[in-house]
């Protein structure tokens, strides 16, 4: 790498910041949790995961973290994805293929509208009050 000019440095910083941003959970207001049990992976959860990462990158969504978890128990509607976001109800999406994943990023995370045709349920925490 040659010597940097001021513009190079700023550009490099912005680029790297975005990459580093994905590590950080601080300041994130949304969580995407993907069920990655055997059932999830068999149903294509890995492809959905990649689609989430890719679409978030493309649309500049930086306020969400993507985490993986084990089987959520909804094996029949895998891949299952739970989305928690400030100002939105917690939602569990079922049968999330690549396209749906991209729609969730665009509609839910970015434009704050639910992807209604894939909603499986609202998590039980909503039903059971403690």
């Amino acid at each position, binding site marked *: *790498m040659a010597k*940097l000019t001021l513009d190079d440095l700023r550009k490099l*910083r912005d680029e790297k910041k975005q990459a*580093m941003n*994905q590590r950080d*959970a601080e300041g994130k207001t949304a969580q995407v949790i*993907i069920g*990655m049990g055997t059932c999830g992976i068999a149903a294509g959860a890995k492809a959905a995961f990649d689609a989430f990462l890719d679409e978030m990158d493309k649309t500049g969504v930086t306020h969400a973290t993507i985490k993986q*978890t084990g089987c959520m128990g909804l094996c029949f509607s895998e891949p299952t994805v739970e989305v928690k976001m400030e100002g939105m109800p917690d939602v569990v999406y079922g049968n999330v293929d690549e396209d749906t994943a991209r729609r969730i990023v665009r509609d839910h995370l970015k434009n704050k509208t639910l992807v209604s045709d894939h909603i499986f349920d609202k998590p039980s925490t909503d039903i059971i009050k403690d």
Partner: protein
Amino acid sequence: MAYKNYIMVCTGTGCESSKAGQLYENLNAELKAAGVEEEAQLVKTGCFGFCEQGPIVKILPDETFYVKVKPEDAKEIVAEHIVKGRPVDRLIYKEPSSDKTPVDTDNIGFYRKQFRIVLRNCAVINPEIIDEYIARDGYGALEKALFEMSPDDVLQEIKDSGLRGRGGAGFPTGTKWGFTKGVEADQKYIVCNADEGDPGAYMDRSVLEGDPHSVLEAMAIAGYTVGASKGFIYIRAEYPLAIDRLNLAIAQAKEYGLLGDNILGTDFSFDIELRLGAGAFVCGEETALLASIEGKRGMPIPRPPFPAVKGLWGKPTVINNVETWANIPVILLKGAKWFNSIGTETSKGTKVFALTGKINNSGLIEVPMGTTLREIIFDIGGGIAGGKPFKAAQTGGPSGGCITPQFLDTPIDYESLMSIGSMMGSGGMIVMDEDDCMIDVTKFYLEFTVDESCGKCAPCRIGGRTCYNILDRISKGKGEVEDLQKLKDIGHAMRKASLCGLGQTAPNPVMSTMKYFEDEYKAHIEDNKCPAGKCKDMLSFSINDNCVGCTACARVCPVSCISGEVKQKHVIDQDKCIKCGQCFTKCKFEAIDRA
């Protein structure tokens, strides 16, 4: 393609020594073997601070905090967590008080009261990759200084921030820079004091290992401010990892044109070189340090003139400690106002402490100035190991003193520590319980300063040795009542007449322990007793009637001085006994008396 997981592995010296390097290699191999090296990025980081629990592995973005991870755990972490998304429960940190897993790192008791400015990038970035530093606003402060601020603006900002030297004495950093800036000279120098020699202290090493670029950036900013084109980092050769990472960082910064000629295309040029010290405590004293850089024997010279005016090769030189430097970029980026909103009236910002000794969570911590010792020891440190009562905390190393239980609620800043006879120092904090003998501790520090004295001035050379001899006599039960006065007199003389800080502060541990633990001194001198049971020459071990003849003591005795038949009471041969106390700790029947 972005990664799904990030595996942060601590590779600070502490974790390295418990095989973090091997763990890193194993994780790397396992990721490849499982075919997921594209999905998870393995990141080498600096110190997490929680050294007690090392080696530490943190998985992001889900913030799983694995502790005491062994190289052989790599397979399970990759197979379970990375591939299947199931955290490995047995490795997750659990709070000792509740046995629960904290939801995220910030919720761990050890981290909750911390505030990281100096350590902001430690354990967050890979210190060997400059891009990661840049992504965390690295070199942004240098950029701001060069393109938006005049040298006077920078100086004013540093002055307004209220930053004081973290090397110990707490001299205002802006004022120091101002002296150098104000002198006309054809050449000026910037020096980083990385000669960390206090027993028990390792914060400077951790900063250099975990975030070397922050120090380079700060030194360049100082160069721009005072008009210097050359910087030196004086570091002791005992810190090989820090040296490697600094060399790498300097090479990367030069390649990017962030050091060297015409930085970022401006007409400002600044270069940094390392100078390795042989590890002499006195070389932490600024004039001795400069002599050592010049290739002379590291001995102090009288001040004034101060190095800020007449330093390296007679030229004006700004010399600051590693921790002081690490504060500079943040101050410029976030502003003086932000910085001095943290801390106390007279001491702004945070302080890094190396918390060691008889404490549950030993490690590297950073807290806002004004945090109390109680918060540090009981909230962050998790209390005294083994639940014993707290006796004292030694701060400031051989130049400092002890803080006793009555001062647990004193807010820690430069002035209040000074007022209770201790000092901030560079930040070693050694916690002691009732099993520690204060005479023994004081003797240890004095032995250290006597060894490390350069011998140039008589008060330090002769005074230190004499004090040590007196303490040695007291600890052997041969002390006299007059000794206390003698120690005081010599101490005062050393404080007044020694040439440099080493000699001036060497009596501090003695003065401080004599003030707060006079009873203990008297017990040694008058009653020939060591209340903590530490001073061997005053101890004797004997076996009482509780003995059931289990032979455990006889088997553990290294000099075979315990005799007796099985199931019969045993006897210790007092002439042969070396008073190691092994039998005392081994006996399950409280059959051994220590007196």
